């Protein structure tokens, strides 16, 4: 440090700067830099990655996935089973307390599920668990979750994910402080508890020594919002930060060469990115399936992944991960063939091409703007004049919910450990929040698959669904992106599924 070279006064300065009280005992907290500030820490009330990162350490869910086998196992719950087609029973672990001492029991589970279900509450992830009707408390450590129709995905929704999964909240505390109070001072059962939150500056979490799986190795976590990407990476390289998520590919070499940080890539369950097209919300050439196929033929996805994503991605056919339950490996999506694209356009009556707008988010996904720009250029080569329109995060989310991003927009789905063909419902069922395409045959099959608990039947139905999707071409290609993390060399942590941060297993070297 330059100051130390200045002799005794330098040493004094160093001590003062370090802050005498803290300098002695504790190791420096692990600092995670985020892309923005969060509005609320209430697990139920957001779908925001920046809010989810601290929340994932503060709250727990009933189940979790084993890091290696990907199988679901108990977390706050000991075990679970199907009682009837529409009733799941969970047996809860005993002796677990929330950070404020309130005991975890069946009442907490009932409260949490029903709060998230309550339309008046306005939880954004509500639709993911809408099949649940109510929760019965059998005894203090047993609950029955009763669903309206068979809900095969219920266990998945009880495991941690970005949005639409049930985090367990303390009923008495929430009643005491109210929603507004809970949003800034949350209390959960997770491995870390909130110590301090200075908005726009830092969020400090301390280890929960009484965590039911044992205290975490790292004492203190600090989350800091730093909006500029270059500043985040610079912070990592200068030692000010220990963890940066969603690093774009072109920063990788720099981090690797730095000697103070390394790059780890998560390819498991990465976001499935797709560009959706509408066939009924906006009149135009895209209403013709041939045009949609032509659009697909025009795009050279392999080159885009190789160049724009620098290889950090996998082309997919149907928008479903290969690890997902029900993935149909037999389907080969429309490839790159600009001549056939032009021929199809001529056939459909658009020999002179047409105009369309592609809506892109602003740095929500890896190199999203560049991918859309590359696609637009490729469409241009077959005569389709495509313009890319970029929107800020919050504006994008809102327009997307209002279905104003027409005729085509980019969105990602999946990840977060769902790994199930049910993903197709979220993305392509015409009633889902994201849908701008309507295909009744597809809707029916997906609904059937949702309505049965029989895995074989579900698999067959999902296979058929994917065939329909292939023929209908409601999307312009899909790919799965990898997630790149920059991690400082003193932090021993491996990423797991997509860009989720679960730091319980992390330790300092």
């Amino acid at each position, binding site marked *: 440090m330059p100051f130390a070279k200045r002799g005794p006064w330098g040493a004094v300065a160093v001590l003062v700067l370090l802050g005498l009280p803290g300098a002695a005992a504790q190791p420096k907290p692990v600092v995670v830099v985020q892309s923005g500030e969060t509005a609320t820490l209430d697990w139920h009330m957001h779908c925001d990655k920046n809010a989810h990162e601290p929340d994932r350490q503060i709250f727990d869910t009933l189940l979790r996935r084993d890091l290696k086998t990907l199988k679901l196992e108990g977390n706050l719950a000991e075990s679970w089973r199907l009682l009837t087609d529409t009733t799941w029973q969970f047996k809860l672990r005993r002796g677990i307390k929330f950070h404020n001492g309130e005991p975890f029991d069946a009442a907490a589970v009932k409260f949490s599920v029903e709060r998230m279900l309550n339309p008046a509450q306005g939880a954004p992830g509500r639709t993911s668990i809408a099949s649940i009707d109510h929760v019965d408390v059998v005894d203090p450590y047993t609950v029955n979750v009763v669903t309206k129709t068979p809900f095969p995905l219920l266990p998945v929704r009880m495991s941690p994910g970005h949005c639409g999964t049930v985090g367990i909240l303390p009923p008495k505390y929430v009643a005491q402080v109210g929603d507004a109070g809970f949003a800034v001072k949350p209390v959960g059962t997770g491995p870390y508890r909130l110590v301090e939150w200075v908005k726009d500056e830092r969020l400090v979490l301390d280890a929960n020594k009484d965590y039911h799986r044992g205290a975490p190795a790292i004492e203190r976590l600090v989350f800091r919002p730093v909006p500029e*990407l*270059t500043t985040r990476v610079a912070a990592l390289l200068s030692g000010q930060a220990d963890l940066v998520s969603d690093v774009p590919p072109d920063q990788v070499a720099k981090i690797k060469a730095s000697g103070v940080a390394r790059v780890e890539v998560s390819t498991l369950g990465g976001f499935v990115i797709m560009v959706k097209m509408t066939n009924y919300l906006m009149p135009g050439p895209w209403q013709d399936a041939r045009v949609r196929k032509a659009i697909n033929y025009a795009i050279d996805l392999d080159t*885009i992944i190789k*160049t*724009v994503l620098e290889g950090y991605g996998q082309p997919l056919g149907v928008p479903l991960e290969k690890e997902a339950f029900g993935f149909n490996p037999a389907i080969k999506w429309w490839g790159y063939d600009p001549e056939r694209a032009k021929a199809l356009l001529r056939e459909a009556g658009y020999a002179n091409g047409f105009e369309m707008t592609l809506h892109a988010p602003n740095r929500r996904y890896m*190199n999203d703007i560049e991918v859309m*720009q*590359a696609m637009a250029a490729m469409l241009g080569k077959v005569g389709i004049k495509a313009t*890319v329109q970029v929107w800020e995060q919050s504006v994008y989310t809102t327009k997307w919910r209002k279905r104003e991003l027409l005729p085509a927009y980019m969105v990602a789905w999946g990840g977060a450990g769902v790994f199930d063909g049910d993903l197709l419902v979220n993305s392509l069922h015409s009633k889902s929040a994201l849908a701008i395409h309507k295909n009744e045959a597809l809707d029916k099959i997906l609904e059937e698959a949702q309505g049965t608990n029989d895995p074989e039947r579900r698999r067959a139905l999902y296979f058929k669904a994917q065939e329909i999707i292939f023929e209908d071409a409601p999307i312009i290609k899909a790919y799965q992106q990898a997630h790149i993390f920059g991690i400082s060399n003193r932090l021993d942590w491996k990423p797991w599924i997509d860009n989720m941060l679960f730091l319980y297993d992390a330790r300092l070297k």
Partner: protein
Amino acid sequence: MPEWWALHRRTRTFLAAPSARFGLVVLVGVLLCALLPERLAPADPNEQQLLARFTPPATRTGDGTLAALGTDQLGRDILSRVIHGARTSVLIGMSAALLAGTVGTSLGLTAGIRGGMSDHLIMRLADMQFAFPFILLAITVIGVLGPSIRNIILVVGLSNWATYARVVRAETLAVRERTYVDAARSLGLSRPRILWRHILPNVSASLIVVATFGVAGAILTEAGLSFLGLGVPLAIPSWGGMLAEGRQFVDTRYWLALFPGAALFVTVMAINLLGDALRDALDPYLVARRAVGQL
């Protein structure tokens, strides 16, 4: 002295300064780029060559073409984008200056001629415009109306009129005092003609100087707005936009941001130097002192 001689002398003084010559040369270059980008640029600025992304400057791409200034993250030729970007900057800069100048001159004339309440009001508005940080207004308006070239010109133009107004007003007041105006009026000449013949020629020199600096300011402001994501839309090459896109590559692929940054810097510098030289040459006070040998 006859007018043409004065003009000649001033031009000579102006051109004598090396900074002015530099400024003029650079600006002629920029204007050429702005007027004829298709002729000067080696490639289409929006043409992507994905396999040739991030080609360093002075290297040949896969198909043998030379990327003089390299290519960007989508394989687009940077030299061509810089040349086309000149058009955006010039367009925004000059339009904004024109708008500001028109509005400012009209208001200044009104203030000077009408006097009284309107004068007071306009001058106080001008004060306010000076005082207020324009960028805040810009992001508010663009936040509400949405980013587009038209809105940027509007916002930049309407936030700059005060200087023009002040200059014109001062000159108008000065001319009002002179007797020949009364004489002219008594002869029946209408007010507009008086304005035209007496005020505007005197004030035009100062206006040109103000406009020159105004153009430089507008160009820098557009760069700032693009950085914040409120600038020119993606499809149109602009120096500010290129800087915004290239900023994350500043230490690994410096050329994405270096060249538009340099273009911006050199252009703004040239305009400023030109403005300085113009002011030195045209400012009557300085001219007089020079004539007397004091400077």
